[in-house]
């Protein structure tokens, strides 16, 4: 734990990502945070956000080249460091993605598939309705009546093998996971940093939830 006992949230910096948007949101929430360009900086943070834009293949290539997967795994998977993936940051939690045939982190069992271009406009861009389906504490702030709208930008969607990993669902031609949550591993397919006050609430919950509630 860090100064004044407030956890520091580290944001993984992509040279080509929107990490800055996440930092702006955390700043506005008064959450102590640090933009991290190298894995050794994980030593000085308590939680980690993996923002994501772009494609699964390119993201994995960047992360692997910089040494992130082997630095994150012992902390997040083995030692319970709270982790939040956003957008592509959700998709690469699974074993593989059809996007560029990418091998992904494999922290959660499942795959990632493309939306059907004959059925819907791709990418999905816009505000879609999110319905909570899990009692994971991260998602406790989501309305259960299905009136929560969040901003999505995605051409692919996750297909978790373990249904209990799905935290919230949305429809775009078919139902798909809007959020996943298993213990300390949380992720949103939508951009919580760009989803207005409801999105900021979720980011704030992630940054402030007591770690013992995330087991």
């Amino acid at each position, binding site marked *: 734990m860090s100064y004044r006992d407030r956890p520091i949230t580290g944001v993984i910096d992509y040279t080509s990502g929107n990490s800055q*948007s996440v930092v702006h949101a955390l700043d506005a929430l008064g959450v102590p945070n640090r933009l991290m360009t190298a894995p050794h900086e994980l030593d000085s943070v308590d939680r980690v956000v993996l923002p994501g834009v772009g494609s699964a293949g390119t993201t994995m290539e960047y992360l692997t080249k910089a040494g992130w997967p082997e630095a994150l795994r012992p902390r997040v998977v083995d030692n319970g460091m709270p982790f939040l993936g956003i957008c592509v940051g959700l998709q690469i939690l699974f074993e593989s993605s059809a996007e560029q045939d990418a091998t992904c982190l494999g922290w959660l069992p499942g795959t990632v598939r493309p939306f059907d271009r004959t059925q819907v*406009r791709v990418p999905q861009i816009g505000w879609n309705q999110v319905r909570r389906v899990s009692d994971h504490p991260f998602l406790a702030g989501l309305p259960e009546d299905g009136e929560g709208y969040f901003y999505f930008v995605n051409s692919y969607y996750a297909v978790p093998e373990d249904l209990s990993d799905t935290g919230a669902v*949305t*429809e775009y*031609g078919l139902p798909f996971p809007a959020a996943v949550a298993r213990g300390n591993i949380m992720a949103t397919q939508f951009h919580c940093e*760009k*989803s*207005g*006050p409801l*999105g900021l609430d979720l980011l704030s919950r992630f940054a402030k939830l007591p770690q013992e509630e995330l087991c």
Partner: protein
Amino acid sequence: MLTSGLTARLIACFDVIGGRVTKARRFEDNIDVGAAVEIAAAVYADGIDELIFYDILASAERRQADLHTIREVAQQVFVPFTVGGGIRSLQDMHAVLAAGAEKISVDSMAVRDPQIIAQGTAEFGTQCIVQSMQAKHVGKTPAIPSGYEVFIDGARVATGMDAVQWARRGEELGAGEIVVNSIDQDGTHAGYDLRITRMIADAVNVPVIASGGAGSTDHVAAAFREAGVSAAIISSLLYSPRMERTMSVPEVKADLAKQHGLTVRPCP
């Protein structure tokens, strides 16, 4: 084409000069509206779904977009934020994104060098590059089968390119969204040009955004219902000094929901 579940997305668009919002009619006679950062924060608080800033002189003055204003907006607006104007290279795109924008709008530059779209999407993803076009009704010719031609440089320079063909080409190059702005309707408050908007929405699979001419919620509803757009740009309706009565974001959304049965994101 289904856009199942998605709300009718409303985008506030601002032409910005030196940190101040300005309003033109058919690309002329600009009137100063107010400080860009303040107006952006106000429409965000009111529940707008997205923002676009065009730094309208950056291109002509061959300088980079106003990064200071972009950063200040990004620090207080937590909905998607697109920036256009003055973007000539990947380096310019990096700078605008690092300041906190999500998307880059390319217009005249992309007509001169279409590969900028492909380079941008390769670097930042298809969702990051918005192809924006200024279309004008010129009548059908063999070179312009749709009857609509693309203009650039503040709608002053004709390109000889067909608007529908240019949209298809933009999608092929990787543009994630296409803004269709009607030069004839721009700032007139007489409604979008539904004909060209519909033609382009039918021709491409990526989301299409209606722009230019909305003066009432009837016009906005027609873009979603009749032209098949995913989003609509409103600017005059919200703040034009030429409108007899402007509307707030909650008023626009309430009208779209109650009078027109469209699903909108509730205002905070």
